[in-house]
């Protein structure tokens, strides 16, 4: 893509989605009580003409900044603007929640409306695109990426958002919220650890033994086709049978319900990405390197331990990363069988027709997945920075 050329497509697309959504969809939803039917308020009645024009004009600025692709300055400006718009949308929502809630009575709930959500998500695409163009290691990119999260954390800590329905739900369940967050993290960690041990082994088996390649992949793939609820359901019977046959297991909490079926299911789901990446990582080792190792007299396991695995490790690790993010999302399964996780709030919210509670659980999962993914990315780039792959003396 040529810099400075035609219009910036990401910016235009974001504005085309963001601006009409902001103007036409409800900015806030007000309920008289937690479970009452809500009244959707368009921005004009929710936040008044001045703020409506202010937020809408930010989208106009996005369009103006996207008329051409421009250089680095444009990229940074669009990223910062996107981040600012997210923060502004959240701030205005928090502010208006207090305002509207005061009029609607003590038990009133004010939720962020669809227009505000879509507008914020469209703005987020500006942040993401800008980060990618600036490069992962660029300090400016980091600033663009961290601006909105930092602003939101600040608003949370100062209580500025406490009048929002979602924060009222949080206040009700705060204790459980952190316990379930911990549970989710724990289940994900245990599942991914087990899946890594098993998955890397299976990946090696599939790589080394052509006859086993198909059966291995068929097996780990078939787990993906079983819906979560069915998987947990299928595990309940055998696990409770085992725990009745070996009562000692029950002392560790292993049984048909509780954490055992959840962690088992999560592990089975986590396998595919790890097996696939292990296999791909081992395949990616240059054939000349493998040939040299064999030709110098390495045994199969020496070759695997000293050459193939170390060189394939970056790919293996990104499989583990993918798997981890996926497992955090899958952890909602816990809600079905008493191995409770953040999924509990999602399903409870659905059952009670309280969208704010559902949103609380979902956002917590997304935030957790994003944080874990970023941390693992940093670990990955630090651990596998040099000499693991790429050119080996091909320049004269």
């Amino acid at each position, binding site marked *: 893509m040529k810099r400075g050329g035609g219009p910036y497509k990401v910016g235009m697309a974001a504005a085309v989605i963001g601006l009409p959504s902001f103007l036409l969809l409800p900015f806030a939803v007000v309920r008289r009580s937690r479970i009452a039917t809500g009244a959707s308020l368009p921005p004009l009645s929710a936040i008044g003409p001045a703020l409506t024009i202010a937020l809408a004009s930010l989208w106009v600025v996005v369009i103006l900044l996207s008329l051409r692709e421009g250089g680095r300055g444009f990229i940074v400006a669009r990223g910062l603007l996107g981040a600012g718009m997210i923060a502004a949308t959240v701030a205005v929502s928090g502010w208006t929640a207090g305002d509207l809630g005061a009029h609607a009575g003590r038990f009133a709930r004010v939720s962020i409306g669809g227009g505000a959500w879509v507008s914020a998500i469209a703005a987020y695409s500006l942040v993401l695109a800008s980060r990618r163009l600036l490069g992962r290691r660029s300090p400016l990119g980091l600033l663009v990426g961290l601006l909105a999260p930092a602003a939101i954390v600040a608003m949370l800590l100062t209580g500025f958002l406490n009048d929002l329905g979602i924060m009222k739900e949080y206040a009700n369940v705060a204790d459980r919220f952190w316990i379930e967050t911990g549970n989710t993290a724990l289940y994900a960690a245990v599942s991914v650890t087990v899946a890594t041990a098993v998955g890397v082994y299976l990946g090696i088996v599939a790589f080394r033994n052509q006859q086993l390649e198909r059966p291995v992949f068929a097996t780990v793939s078939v787990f993906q086709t079983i819906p979560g609820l069915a998987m947990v359901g299928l595990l309940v019977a055998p696990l409770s049978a085992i725990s009745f046959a070996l009562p000692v297991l029950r002392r560790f909490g292993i049984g048909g319900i509780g954490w055992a079926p959840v962690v088992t299911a999560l592990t089975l789901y986590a396998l595919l990405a790890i097996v696939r990446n292990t296999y791909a990582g081992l395949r990616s080792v*240059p054939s*000349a*390197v493998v*040939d*040299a*190792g*064999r*030709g*110098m*007299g*390495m*045994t199969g396991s*020496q070759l695997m331990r*000293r*050459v193939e695995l*170390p*060189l394939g490790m970056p790919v293996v690790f990104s499989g583990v990363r993918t798997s981890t993010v996926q497992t955090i999302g899958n952890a909602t399964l816990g809600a079905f069988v008493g191995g409770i996780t953040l999924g509990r709030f999602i399903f409870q919210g659905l059952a009670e027709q309280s969208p704010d509670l559902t949103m609380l659980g979902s956002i917590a999962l997304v935030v957790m997945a994003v944080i874990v993914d970023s941390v693992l990315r940093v670990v990955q780039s630090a651990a596998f920075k*040099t*000499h*693991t*792959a*790429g*050119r*080996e*003396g*091909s*320049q*004269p």
Partner: protein
Amino acid sequence: MITFDHVTKRYEGTARPAVDDLSLQIPEGETVVLIGPSGCGKSTSLRMVNRLIEPDSGTVSENGRDVRDFPPEELRRQIGYAIQGVGLFPHFTVGENIGVVPRLLGWEPARITARVEELLGLVGLDGLAYMDKYPDELSGGEAQRVGVARALAADPPVLLMDEPFGAVDPLTRERLQSEFVDIQARLKKTVVFVTHDIDEAVKLGDRIAIMREGRLIQYDTPERVLAYPADEFVAGFVGAERALKRLSLAPISEALDPAVGLNDPKATVPLDSSLRTALARIIEFGVPVVGITDEAGNVVGSVSIESIVERFKRPLL
């Protein structure tokens, strides 16, 4: 000595064998170059020596012992192996790369370090400066040198080299070839060398084995291959300039006349050059005869167009 005895190898799903009834003896301490077009079976033959490929029939033996009598890993640790694209381990330092086989053989770390330094010196790299570098910090020529050093690490009597200088520019390649000739003159390894470059074969080989479609077409000294190509294929393969290539193999002493008829005192060639250099000098100065000088610069004889032509009329033994 390495002996191929009626060796045949056929890959699944191919019409003709990759190697077809190959019989060949590679004498101790000589460099034998296997050469031919792609798919002629030269690499397959080389890889049967260290059992990276097993023959379907026939035997490959080293000093009379079938290579299949040895466990493959043990066999391979006693045979140096250098390949095209080098195959250096990118996550190992130069020192660790060279030390792979000694480590597999269980050498003491101090002995490995000493050996690595010695070998880096042998291939013309400063040991201390290169020891801790990674392959991605090396130029192509340096990487190939490290590849050769690695193959020599455990001082194996036999060296297998599969286009080891294939991936570098022509200038670097020529330098590497000359260095290899020098090293080999000192070490006297039994070398099986695969290439598709006839100039490389002529320069490095004590003998050349020309292969085509899995069969051995001609096995002879470079000069005889150039002088008496076995058939049209070989003649085409060695090229229309084969007479010039022969010139570069022939020492001046073989066409030396007494120092008479010299007109231009500057038209001289050192005694240790090839007849190719002498001919180049003759053309350069436009004279029929050039003087030949010894190390001290004294004219000790002459070479003329006639003496060169006479030299090539003599049949080769």
